[in-house]
């Protein structure tokens, strides 16, 4: 369902050309739970941006559900982000002063989906936060905020959830809870999850680990026995 062929991404930073990705081939099938790990500067964030259709490759092809995303207009990319991709960020990125349920509804605002409130509440139910639907992010702990963000990523039934350092701002205990939630969504609901992290014990919860170095994939191995978060 995700297929990258020789993806190259080059940025122009002033006079200097930065080769963020130097030819990446990657296949991710439906229902997988993949961790992408690597030191900073290895190109994992750039890879994430391209997987999330926030950016397009300089060279090479990216097929998402068979669609060649390199050929799409800005508006079509926005639609794909809206319908096919659920984002989870390190810093949660919730709108402050806005209730959890309204935050979860946000993607529906841009896809003209009906029945919003009910769908948003159901989504919060899935992450175990239905009871606190009408609290604002300021009233939520970090773990709860990340749950709201996950509920938001689920709302449009995306093909894939992209989580960029989802536990980076959380303590160990809460991190494990969030990983448990991801494992549950992946195992029970079969949702494809791609997770970027630099913490190896977080990556160890996934069933496959892709290591990045200097803009290339240095290793791509299945995890024999993923950690089970409880």
């Amino acid at each position, binding site marked *: 369902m995700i297929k990258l062929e020789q993806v190259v991404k080059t940025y122009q930073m002033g006079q200097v050309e930065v080769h963020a990705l130097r030819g990446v081939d990657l296949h991710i099938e439906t229902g997988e739970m993949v961790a992408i790990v690597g030191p900073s500067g290895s190109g994992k964030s750039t890879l994430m941006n391209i997987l999330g259709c926030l950016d397009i490759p300089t060279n090479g092809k990216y097929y998402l559900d068979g669609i060649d995303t390199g050929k799409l207009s800005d508006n079509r990319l926005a639609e794909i982000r809206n319908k096919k991709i659920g984002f989870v960020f390190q810093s949660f990125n919730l709108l402050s002063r806005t209730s959890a349920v309204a935050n979860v509804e946000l993607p529906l605002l*841009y896809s*003209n989906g009906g029945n919003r409130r009910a769908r948003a509440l159901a989504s919060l139910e899935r992450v175990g936060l239905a009871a606190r639907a009408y609290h604002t992010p300021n009233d939520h702990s970090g773990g709860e905020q990340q749950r709201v963000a996950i509920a938001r990523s689920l709302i449009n039934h995306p093909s894939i959830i992209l989580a960029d350092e989802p536990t980076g701002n959380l303590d160990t205990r809460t991190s494990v809870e969030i990983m448990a939630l991801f494992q549950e969504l992946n195992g029970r609901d079969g949702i494809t999850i791609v997770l970027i992290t630099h913490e190896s014990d977080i990556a160890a919860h996934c069933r496959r680990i892709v290591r990045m170095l200097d803009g290339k994939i240095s290793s791509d191995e299945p995890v024999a026995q993923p950690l089970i978060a409880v």
Partner: protein
Amino acid sequence: MNLRESIQVSLGALAAHKLRSGLTILGIVIGISAVIALMALGRGAQSSITANLQGMGTSVLFVRPGAPVQMGGVRMPQGSAATLTVEDARAIAERVPQVVTAAPEFGLVAQVVAGGQNVNTRIIGATPDYQTVRNWYPAQGEFISTAQVDGQAMVAVIGSNVALNLFGEGDPLGESIRINTRTFKVIGVLQTKGGGGFALFDDQIIVPISLQSRLNPRRTASGASNVSNISVQVDREENLETARAEIEALLRQRHRIQEGRPDDFTVSSQQELTQAFSQVVGVFTLVLGAIASISLLVGGIGIMNIMIVSVTERTREIGLRKALGAKRRDILVQFIIESIALSFAGGVLGFLLGWAESLVLSGIRVGGTTLQSEIAPDIVVLALGVSAVIGVFFGIYPAYRASQLHPIQALRWE
């Protein structure tokens, strides 16, 4: 995203910064209210002038001394040349068949004293025909009679404001007033005309025209007493043009003006005068309004400023919305609606404030003129329309900047 949702999102964003939004709106409120107040007062002046002139009926011609000059397509009397006489008026009444009456008058400003009070006001010398032509009669007592004109009686009919200023609540009839050191007996008080504009009818005092030589030493070259205006009542409106031509021919003959030389007088109809005065007031109002609208420009720049700040502050939010599927258009619309909401709210409040201002000012007398306010639907539409346009105009650049932000950079913004 549909329009209703965009509006909800935008209003929510504004409500999150109440003080800031309020101060931004204030700029527009001040601008719009200034424009509205000026326009309402200008419109009030215009309609009071029109009402006063139309009160005389539509079949009236005015003959004034001085050659006509062109002004915006309307003939305006040049003014001070002393060429018309009481005899001219009599000739017009007798020799032009369509003319019912011709009322000559002269005017001057004089010091008037009664009891301990003293006012500086306009004295009109007139004949009994003045009432008919001007459609203006005494409310108390009576008007000057032909006998009083012929006998040069020292009598005066005073305007209602004069009565109020000189005698207060007391009865002015039979009282004495002094005009330029001469004593007159008050025989009547005129109906209140109200309004103001440039005409100040209720501040006038009317005396027999035959007293002119005693009050005003100005004469024509030939020695006859001059008049400042002859109001001519024509029998039917359709005869206005015929009457005008005949009056012109008659006066040219009487004044011995040679073929090819310009008239030394001007004949204008009531409509022409109304038009000319309205035009003058209209231009005046427009100029004042234009000056006031500078403050609108300042208000608009304030909106733009605050919108740019808001876009910068909310860069991450914009990035997030884009990541979640907002298109450029969605972001553009959201921010334009915010700026329209600001300026439109300013427009509504400014309109109400301007209206209130004009009502407060409308009682006030400035230089003998009573200000009047009039709010017409077109002023309302103008105020709201202009404020909405300001919102779009000054909102479009910040909104465009917001819509062009790249989602990745916007999300990384600290």
